[in-house]
């Protein structure tokens, strides 16, 4: 290694003589940091999405590698957000990869003191039975004046503002067919 090369590896020298006098870029790179690449570069694909927090609707680019999300960035193409995300939107990667996320069904039996495991299909089947039962017990054919009601007050639903339009559509459609009128979401709040 010649003196010139050795000097060239010295950050102070590079900062003093190179194009990075403030020492915030090339001048302070080590072989290790030089070899670093943004994880966005290594993504298999970039999927177009929208931020899930408030209603501004900022565009998001989802970086995926080996079937896992490696990073979420603001979408510069969006005329709404022009690539920007706020602290919440910027935390989207930790939202979708959160270690405290619950990914299996949890079940608490009546008067139980602990959570238990339950198979998803069994849970859906139990819920279907309970919906049918509550619907029947809360059913009202007519009111006191004999006017047709054709509804049930036995069950209700809350939530929708964090869901997709297509999901809200199926919820409303199913509940109307059940006669369950008590469907509400955050918009009332």
């Amino acid at each position, binding site marked *: 290694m010649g003196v010139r090369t050795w000097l060239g590896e010295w950050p102070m020298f590079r900062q003093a003589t190179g194009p990075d006098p403030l020492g915030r870029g090339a001048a302070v790179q080590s072989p290790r940091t030089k070899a670093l690449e943004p994880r966005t570069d290594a993504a298999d694909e970039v999927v177009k999405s929208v931020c*899930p927090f408030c209603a501004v609707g900022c565009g998001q680019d989802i970086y995926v590698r080996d*079937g896992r999300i490696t990073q979420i960035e603001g979408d510069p193409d*969006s005329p709404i957000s022009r690539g920007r995300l706020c602290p919440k939107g910027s935390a989207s990667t930790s939202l979708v990869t959160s270690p405290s996320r*619950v990914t299996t069904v949890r079940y608490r039996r009546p008067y139980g*003191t602990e959570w238990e495991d339950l198979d998803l299909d069994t849970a859906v089947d139990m819920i279907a039975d309970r919906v049918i039962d*509550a619907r029947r017990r809360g059913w009202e054919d007519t009111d006191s004046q004999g006017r047709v009601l054709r509804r049930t007050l036995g069950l209700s639903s809350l939530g929708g503002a964090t869901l997709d339009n297509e999901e809200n559509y199926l919820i409303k459609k199913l509940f109307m067919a059940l006669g369950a009128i008590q469907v509400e*979401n955050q918009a009332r709040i």
Partner: protein
Amino acid sequence: MHSDCIVIEGSNMAEAHPVGFQWVMEAKRRGATVIHVDPRFTRTTAVADEHVPFRGGADIAFLGGLISYVLENELDFRDYVTAFTNAADIVDDDFTDSGDVDGLFSGYDPDTGHYDPASWALDGAYRAPAAGKRDAWESQMPDGPRPGADPMGHHEPRRDETLTHPRCVFQVLRRHYARYTPEAVARVCGMSVEQFLQVARSVTENSGRDRTTAWVYSVGWTHHTVGVQYIRAAAILQTLLGNMGRPGGGILALRGHASIQGSTDIPTLFDLLPGYLPMPSAHHETLADYIDADAAKTGFWGDMDAYTVSLLKAWWGDAATPENDFAFDWMPRITGDHGSYVTVKNQIDRKSFGYFLVGENPAVGHANGKMQRLGLANLEWLVVRDMQMIESASFWQNGPEIETGELRTEEIGTEVFFLPCANHTEKSGSFTQTQRLVQWRHEAVHPPGDSRSELHFYFHLGKRIREKLAGSTDERDRPLLELTWDYPTSGIHEEPDVVSVLAEINGADADGRPLSTYTELRADGSTTAGCWIYTGIFADGVNQADRRKPGSEQDLVAHEWGWAWPANRRVLYNRASADAEGRPWSERKKLVWWDEEQGRWVGHDVPDFEATKPPDYKPDPGATGPDALAGTDAFNMQSDGKAWLYAPSGLADGPLPTHYEPVESPVANLLHDQQDNPAREEMNRAWNRLNPSQSEVFPYVFLTYRLTEHHTAGGMSRTLGYLSELQPEFFCEVSPALARERGLEHMGWATLISARTAIEARVMVTERMKPLRIGDRTVHQIGLPYHWGSNGLSVGDPANDLLGVVMDPNVHIQESKVATCDIQPGRRPRGPALLEYVADYRRRAGVEPGGIQ
């Protein structure tokens, strides 16, 4: 960013909608004046040109003062007002104004607490409202005719185009707000006369032919017992100034969840069907009854039959026929308020047994957390679908009522199913953002473990229920069994095809071809549409919400990014951006105009008007639907095509906004004898005690709000490391003066007490909070961010536990932006001692005992 002046009132936009706020800053860079009217000095205030500190709950006084300033100084945009508003209509002489009688309008019944709106009518005409209480006449007068209406409903009201008739709307408005002088407003709001006049000058100087002012609000306006009237007041002012339907104008609602707009359009709400069709009521026996009662005969609501029949065809397909009224009879009927709070009351009373919570955490996020948790604890079963273990799922383990001993885990009978859900990257679908723009997301990865989309869960739940009821001959099961519920599925989990759901929402013709716009819908059953205002989102079989032409390659309107309902219009009622003759009001404020050569409306936005209806078009007498509107009737969802300065129908609490104090107010109403909204909705139960008005025991006002770093009830933010580190703890903001008065130390602890409960928070003493002078007393306001609960990385007491529930009578939204409390230094008592501590406050304030029943 086309605005010359932006007033942000009832919103901390920089904090709660930071990325949207970049456009306010762009407007400011281009010379716009930014005004922040708010009780607190916030991140928004920090970059505003003017800050008007004032008392929460005084907005109608403030806006009424501006209306009066405009009228008394003749600063209204007169050409706009005469062309596009109902200012010239004559009000019936039965009407008495709240300015005349104690702050009450005519028609009030003190026994029921309700208004009969009959006397608010216009002279010579019934005007069906486009929203709100559309069929008030039918429900209150089942056998009577509509006041002033002929059987066809075609009568025109008497008008005075000179606006001088003493009973014309313009003069009624002037008299109503005459007492809202700058001096009176300053006294009620706690601002100086000069501060008020400064805003009045900025707003009026930046409105007119050449300039426009925008008003921005959020839940700082809706969370009141008079919330609807707040927005009405802004609408009156912006209409008088000619700021509606024009570039840089308008009233912008900033909404707080990714698709809260979508869940209102395609509503998971009790009182609506998709596209703002009202839910049928018990007095609507037939489809014709329903249409007749709720729909205006003129304007675009005149085609409500086509929207409704298309919806019924989308849901029940071939089973919906002209012979069976298109299965209208299968729709359940409502009878009054079935909103969230009434439902929870029914749960506590064990009249409602099962509950689905889908991406919502009411134990933290709703007013009166105790009431919410008591509802949960009295259920038979509860299904929670979320990503994290939220407080509403674990209330039986670690809720505040377990700590106090009011509830015991072993005695709570609620069966809880926690089902994990897919997040926004794990499913495809659309969100509708705050300006009605629908944007598509693509699935990036598969959901882990048992996590599924809501689309998956509800489709398969519906399928399972239908299988269990298959073969039933019970008439009540027919709507379920005949429901169109056969979406194609794919993958090992049989995920339903979300694009086929979007296509159903869009609608199709008799041959199954996607429709392009709602004017193609028919009432004869030949078309379908799951949500008529979204028709066109799947035009030509193409997902228009998935259009992503980069903003840098488009003009500022960016029509090729996503799709806005209706018809991809970006500014509603934009016909009003041109004058009566169809010419732009000015070169600078050009948006949409009439092109004589082409014989059509053209411009920078999709015209919100029938494309070829000329400005001088006059309807034939007896015309119906859109044909009945003239070429100057820009507000075409209204039955008369006019912006309503005076609302003769549709509202539960008066045709004009009137200042009433919040139910829990530290001061008397200085403008009217009537203290608070006489038509408000209350729930007087042990778990929902209210603080008396002007109580010395609860002398301070508190306000609840959001922080940038957290999201609503915290399930999507208090569980994340970075965000919890940025805002680690629940705190209260107090002024140095209040800190001295109560001995509160910065960074120390404080206990806040109301008739509901007591909570504790870290103290932040800050000059951002200013004591206000109201009448002869000093009013202190305390700020409380409401994000905290017991679960997650960052935990704390829920601010919402401090609130009671008292509601606006139009929309049943709670008054959570202003309530009263006491504040004391130190931490709150623990366990049963907390109950005794609060009980003592109730006794001293003369409030009935609390409890869980």
